[in-house]
């Protein structure tokens, strides 16, 4: 066995939260618990029992926080090592302070992902599971969670196997003609080879097309709310969030910095960014806000362009549209309860036009649905059959396989079997990196079962 040092880290996301957890893993976990944590009950820490108590600075005796602690003795823990978790109040300063106390006991700060790596090294989970667990940790919404779980169950692996099958079949054909020129194999069956490669490539293309969708499910989308000042952007944000997050006044130019909030709607994480209204201004602070808005534009997946329906289309509205020249835009016509004077020019510039009354909330649900529809087609998240690439590593592997196959197809007319085999092998190796398989013996088995070889 190998000696493991003891590691510790904050296991809750950075920032201020309701609760902050410090996790310790390794042989010293219990000792750390007894040093920094004092239970109110007499028995001290009992494995797999929560106890209430205080965290104190052992050097000064000063009380740092009231906390809950749980000790999990090896192997019944996430890492299969002794694990201690300290649940303290979530203020960032408190959490930092507690971690410092723990580290002062002589344990090491964990590397990113090291708890999962230990779980993996100690045989608690396998590599693909480890990756999926990372996804679960990072998942922001239910759809992402489902995707991560399905991936763990191997739906993607299965599809990749199908791709591999096709490529193996093609490679076996090519290799047979190379290695057995004196056997009576007939003419090189280019049609069959090309057909196998073609179906592999189609599957790869389909999988690659799901990557963007997979990313959206996993990471969520960002939606920028833009419009001229006082069009009602902040009111709209508050309605979308169902809370008073943004300050709403009748004074144009109130919002000067960018406000970010995330909601989960129909399983999709949507991050809304409320921005400063765009107009000519001499106010330096407001101008800075406008500049920041413009910086955010290219990063947004979608823009909600908010117009005041009670006013005529203005020069400032036109400025906004000019600034968003290349964007995917949904036009939101606010103040639909007032007499409508707005006539949108070039309405076909927009993915959709939605009427809302931010003040009352009318039309806001329909707006949310319209936003979702732009990203989740084919009701993909509902289908059990939905397989999606969500990791950049997988995508890179398939892109690389696709490059090999394109070169293969380009080289097919020249009939240099050796180079064709090289490209097929390259594609197979790339695909193999997703699930972790190599080829040689499989190819030979296939040759011997498909052809009568032998002199």
């Amino acid at each position, binding site marked *: *066995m*190998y*000696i*493991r*040092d003891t590691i510790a880290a904050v296991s809750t996301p950075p920032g201020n939260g309701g609760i902050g957890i410090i996790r310790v893993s390794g042989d010293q976990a219990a000792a750390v618990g007894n040093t920094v944590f004092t239970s109110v009950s007499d028995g001290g820490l009992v494995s797999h029992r929560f106890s209430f108590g205080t965290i104190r600075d052992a050097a000064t005796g000063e009380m740092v926080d009231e906390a809950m602690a749980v000790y999990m003795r090896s192997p019944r823990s996430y890492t*299969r090592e002794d694990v201690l978790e300290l649940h303290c109040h979530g203020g960032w300063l408190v959490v930092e302070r507690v971690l410092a106390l723990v580290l002062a006991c002589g344990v090491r700060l964990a590397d990113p992902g090291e708890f999962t790596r230990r779980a*993996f*090294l*100690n*045989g*608690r989970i*396998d*590599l*693909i599971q480890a990756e999926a667990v990372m996804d679960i940790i990072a998942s922001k919404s239910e759809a992402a969670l489902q995707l991560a779980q399905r991936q763990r169950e191997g739906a993607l692996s299965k599809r990749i196997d199908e791709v591999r099958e096709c490529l193996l079949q093609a490679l076996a054909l090519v*290799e047979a*003609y*190379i*290695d*057995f*020129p*004196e*056997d*009576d194999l007939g003419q090189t069956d280019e049609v069959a080879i090309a057909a196998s490669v073609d179906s592999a490539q189609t599957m790869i293309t389909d999988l690659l097309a799901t990557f963007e969708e997979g990313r959206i499910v996993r990471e969520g989308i960002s939606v920028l709310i833009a419009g001229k000042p006082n069009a009602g952007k902040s009111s709209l944000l508050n309605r979308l969030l169902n809370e008073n997050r943004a300050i709403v006044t009748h004074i144009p130019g109130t919002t000067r910095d960018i406000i970010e909030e995330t909601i989960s709607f129909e399983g999709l994480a949507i991050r809304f960014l409320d921005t400063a209204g765009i107009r000519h201004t001499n106010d330096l602070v407001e101008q800075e806000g406008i500049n920041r808005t413009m910086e955010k534009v290219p990063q947004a997946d979608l823009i909600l362009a908010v117009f005041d329906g009670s006013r005529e289309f203005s020069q400032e509205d036109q400025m906004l549209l000019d600034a968003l020249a290349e964007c995917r835009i949904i036009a939101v016509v606010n103040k639909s309860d007032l007499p409508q004077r707005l006539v949108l020019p070039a309405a076909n510039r927009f993915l959709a036009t939605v009427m809302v009354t931010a003040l009352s909330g009318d039309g806001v649900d329909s707006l949310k649905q319209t936003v979702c529809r732009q990203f989740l087609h084919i009701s993909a998240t509902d289908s059990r059959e939905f397989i999606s690439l969500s990791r950049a590593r997988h995508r890179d592997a398939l892109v690389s396989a696709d490059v090999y196959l394109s070169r293969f197809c380009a080289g097919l007319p*020249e*009939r*240099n*079997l*050796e*180079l064709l*085999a*090289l490209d097929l*092998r390259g594609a197979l190796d790339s695909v*193999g*990196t997703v699930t*972790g*398989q*190599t080829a*040689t*013996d499989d*190819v*030979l088995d296939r040759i*011997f079962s498909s052809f*009568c*070889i*032998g*002199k």
Partner: protein
Amino acid sequence: MITCEQIYDVIVVGAGHAGCEAALASARMDCRTLLLTINLDAIALMSCNPSIGGLAKGHLVKEIDALGGEMAKNIDATGIQFRILNTKKGPAVRASRAQADKQLYRLRMKRVLEQQKNLDLKQGEVTSLCLDGAAVCGVELRSGISYLSKTVIVTTGTFMRGLIHIGLNNYPGGRAGDQPSVGLSDQLRQLGFQVGRLKTGTPARLDARSIDFSKLETQFGDSPPRPFSLSTERITMPQMPCHIAYTNQRSHDIIRSGLDRSPLYSGVIEGIGPRYCPSIEDKVVRFPDKDRHQTFIEPEGLDTIEVYPSGMSTSLPIDIQIAFYRSIVGLERVEIMRPAYAIEYDYVDPIQLHSSLETKTVKNLYHAGQINGTSGYEEAAGQGLIAGINAALRVRGSDPLVLTRSQAYIGVMIDDLVTLGTKEPYRMFTSRAEYRLLLREDNADLRLRDIGHQLGLVSEQEYLRFAEKRCKISEEMERISITRLQNTVQQTAVLVRLGLQDIQKGTTFEQLLRRSEVCYDDLIELDPVSRETSEAIREQVEIQTKYKGYIDRQLEQVEQSKKVESTRIPEGLDYAAVKSLTTEVREKLSKNRPDTLGQASRIPGVTPAAISILAIVLKSSSWKGNS
């Protein structure tokens, strides 16, 4: 038991294709060597097909030659048909093949052995090894004499407990007409070796006078024939054609009618046969939809009427054999001179070997050839050469020679054998080499000549000739990279004829040669200097230029894999303690006991994930190495 006073450096048991190379290599490396054979008249005998080379096998022969072995020279001197296969499928899969005059082949090899300094040849059957603790120190013969030595190389071919089958008749024999070797494999088993059983077969030898060749298709060799060896100027033997014939539905019916008396299908034969070299009954049973099977009728020599029908091996009874061969068009009246037969023999799973071919169980003992589960003369010779070299290096007290997978097919073969073991006869295929583009016949000398020379197996004169060639190749590569098109009237005319009028003035010849429609011979027309370049150098320059992109990519892969290839796994590593490995992977690793992480990665079922775990475990400074 009488013990000979002389203590040899190396004793080689068996004088087939592995034994001959082993004995020559060690004797040429100045070791006192004894070569023992059951039959001095059967040295380097081609027990099966009268040919050398073919895909991947030709590559092996060229590598043996580059290292200073004998096989290439021997076939060049006795070959009666030479062909290059796959000329249009790419340079790395081009391969040489030759028909041999079987008797001349063995006689020439015997003469070379007899003339070799430091080498004694003796007839006798080795019945056991002499041991000194865990190391071998000599051999005992059935005649009651024993010879002592520092190292022993065992190359028993099909002889250990050989059992010949013709129909349901069977009898002990090492090959038709020879006694088997009895006793040795029992001792190996007692020493703890895992000994298994394999099977192979050979077709009947037919009387050419009873064949109507006018009904068969004739196949001639290449003209002029191209030799295997770098040392051979030109092939001087008379050349002969082969003939092509086919079986038919009636032949297959006859085969099926005899299956009830087939030792293969009635379960008499236990040994596993090669899938790539099945008997005719295997082909008929496994591929019932195929309406005919092809056979090359190969001459066994210039001065004999015996011919060899390739691919037609069988262990069916003799009456079925006669009816079957006579069902083939052109062979209606054919007479069998020697019947076809199958043979079962003992082999020792090569997983019990180090990469040097020394056994892990008994020190100073080396195994080479069919005893390691391989089939084929070329595979045997390649191993024999390496075993001979490594026994000699052991005597010298030097590190063994281990060729890598990116260096030689010999390296691929030995790595496959010692890493994975084998359950069926192992044959070389080019598809086994992941760096196929680097392992070409044409560059075998560039890959291996230096090594052969350093070992003392390549003479100074031969080496100088190679060094000169290598120098000329790089000079010519350099020259074409700086020589530019001037677009003279004459050059423009040539370019127009080649359909390359769009080519800019100032283009280098290298850039020109990279285009698929241009070959080196076109350069000759553009540039008088090219005319003086010799054939061998033209070939190298053309291949190295045209395939540069692909070759560079493979070299890059070799570089990337170096880390995992060179990471050694401690011999006593307790895989059971690495809990994150799956049970299946742990079992495989415990059984195979790979020497390096690279070897581990090639064991089927050992996933890349398992390799990363091992890498982490090995790298982890906190690993104590639990033994």
